[in-house]
């Protein structure tokens, strides 16, 4: 392999390409990833209950804990923080020490962070089910729990930055840049959404403005850079193929850093905020096409001549499907920030269709690819079942496509009806029942994929795979 690397880039010495002989303990990685996969399944049940309530509104309706107003925040926060962010954090603990050629700065601090994260998620489940919430999108967690999130994030950030500070190599790989960005941006974004929105005088449209700045940047400056860090690491590693262009990846990173933060106000287009603010958010939303196309072109070009690997490499299946969903969702985003399109799709089912393609289709697919790649390696074993992993992929893909498509079409249909004042609102609700039926049955497929994913990963961790005697060293 070293010869192959030198053949591609003669300027790289073989010593530079040989990694550190130090052994990674990866205890933190295991704790975070196994916990995240467990929460994915638990919150998946909540998602199914919500989907069922759209079709059968009386379902579990008289039990306060299962009312829509409590279930929906639990689903959203559980998926975002219990599953996806925890999985990305676990993968960051795996990626950063390897990219830096050193051990994790503090395994004990990592384990403490994992314990605190589990306390946070369990507290979130109890408080949200009990009806204690702030009522702000993505910032529903009660303030004491949000404070714990900040503490855990500081612990995570200290560990990752201290590891990077002790790195062996001067030039950092792009994943390291994205993860550093994630940590810093999250600090600003999370504090704004969870605390600045509660300041005296921040009410009404001001609170909405800050909330949407937070909500959109929670996706754009937390889950996007974390997900791209994971994808930039695992696409080359899973395919054993060098990234197409590191220079282009840096162009994508810096353009994302410059343009994403300005886009949140596009959630309030045609709302009671300044026209100039709406226009700024639209302009920067369109400019998002630059970092997105830079990323997607890099991923697709990396796979040039390597597409055959998709047939028997489940991590690559998830990664490249996630790439396609990323392209689609980031084309939708700029387009529905245009005033004419927004007038139809805003507040309709189109939006959850778009959000699910971003958070589930793109970043959860990428995180699952990372988990499928990492868990066998950190437990020094083989994946329990390749067949089950493939089944989980197809269940996610078919279920996801069913749900996304139903919500996009239903959302447009809903928007057109809402733009016709002669149609009573309740008629537009009844008309969407078939769409919600498709969403429910698609949700069953997705949940089946989650169950297979959970079974496969936990079985692998519990020792059902074939143990590896010796690491491969070349």
């Amino acid at each position, binding site marked *: *392999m*070293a010869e*192959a*690397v030198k053949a*591609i*880039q003669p*300027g*790289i010495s073989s010593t530079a*390409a040989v*990694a*550190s002989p*130090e*052994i*990674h303990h990866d205890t933190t990685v295991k704790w975070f990833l196994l916990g995240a996969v467990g929460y994915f399944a638990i919150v998946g049940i909540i998602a199914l209950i919500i989907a069922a309530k759209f079709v059968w509104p009386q379902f579990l309706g008289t039990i306060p804990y299962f009312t829509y107003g409590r279930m929906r925040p639990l689903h959203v926060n559980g998926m975002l923080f219990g599953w996806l962010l925890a999985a990305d954090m676990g993968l960051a603990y795996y990626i950063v020490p*390897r*990219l830096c*050629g050193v051990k994790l700065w503090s395994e004990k601090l990592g384990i403490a962070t994992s314990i605190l994260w589990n306390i946070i998620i369990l507290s979130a489940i109890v408080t949200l089910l009990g009806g204690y919430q702030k009522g702000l999108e993505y910032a529903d967690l009660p303030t004491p729990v949000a404070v714990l999130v900040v503490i855990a994030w500081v612990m995570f950030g200290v560990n990752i930055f201290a590891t990077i500070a002790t790195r062996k*190599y001067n*030039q*950092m*790989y792009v994943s390291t840049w994205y993860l550093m960005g994630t940590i810093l*941006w999250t600090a*600003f974004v999370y504090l*704004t959404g969870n605390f*600045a929105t509660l300041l005296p005088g*921040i009410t*009404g*449209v*001001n*609170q909405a*403005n800050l909330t949407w700045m937070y909500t959109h940047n929670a996706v754009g400056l937390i889950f996007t850079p974390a997900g791209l860090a994971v994808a930039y*690491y695992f696409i080359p*590693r*899973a395919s*054993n193929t*060098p*990234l197409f262009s*590191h*220079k282009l990846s*840096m*162009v994508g990173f810096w353009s994302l850093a410059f343009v994403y*933060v300005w886009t*949140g106000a596009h959630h309030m287009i045609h709302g009671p905020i*300044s026209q100039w*603010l709406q226009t700024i958010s639209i302009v920067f939303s369109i400019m998002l096409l630059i970092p997105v196309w830079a990323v997607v072109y890099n991923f697709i070009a990396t796979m040039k001549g*390597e597409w055959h*690997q998709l047939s*028997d*490499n*489940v991590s*690559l299946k998830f990664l490249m499907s996630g790439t396609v969903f990323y392209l689609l969702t980031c084309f939708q985003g700029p387009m529905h920030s245009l005033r004419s399109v927004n007038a139809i799709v805003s507040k309709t089912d189109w939006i959850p269709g778009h959000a699910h393609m971003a958070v589930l289709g793109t970043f959860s697919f990428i995180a699952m690819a990372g988990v499928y790649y990492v868990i066998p*390696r950190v437990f020094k074993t*083989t994946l329990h079942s*390749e067949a089950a992993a493939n089944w989980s992929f197809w269940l996610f893909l078919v279920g996801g496509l069913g749900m996304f498509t139903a919500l996009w079409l239903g959302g447009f249909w809903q928007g057109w009806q809402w733009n016709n004042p002669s149609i009573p609102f309740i008629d537009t609700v009844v008309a969407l029942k078939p769409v919600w039926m498709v969403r429910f049955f698609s949700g069953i497929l997705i949940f089946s994929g989650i169950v297979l994913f959970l079974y496969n990963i936990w079985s692998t961790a519990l020792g059902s*795979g074939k143990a*590896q005697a*010796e*690491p*491969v060293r*070349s």
Partner: protein
Amino acid sequence: MTDFTYPSVYFSYFLFVLLAGGAVFFFVRSLKDGYLGPNSEEPKYRMLKDDPDDVETQPTGAGAPRRP
């Protein structure tokens, strides 16, 4: 006409300036460190060999022949 969004706009655009300023600072620093220079492709080759503990965990796919 009164624009009632000003308090939140002031706050959020203060953050935007802070973030954009940080991005400019670190972007310039990364240029000085050669991230867009002639050796900027080096990390992508190094990362393929970054794990001494790596084991072959998939019977197919990950071990298939690669393009040079």
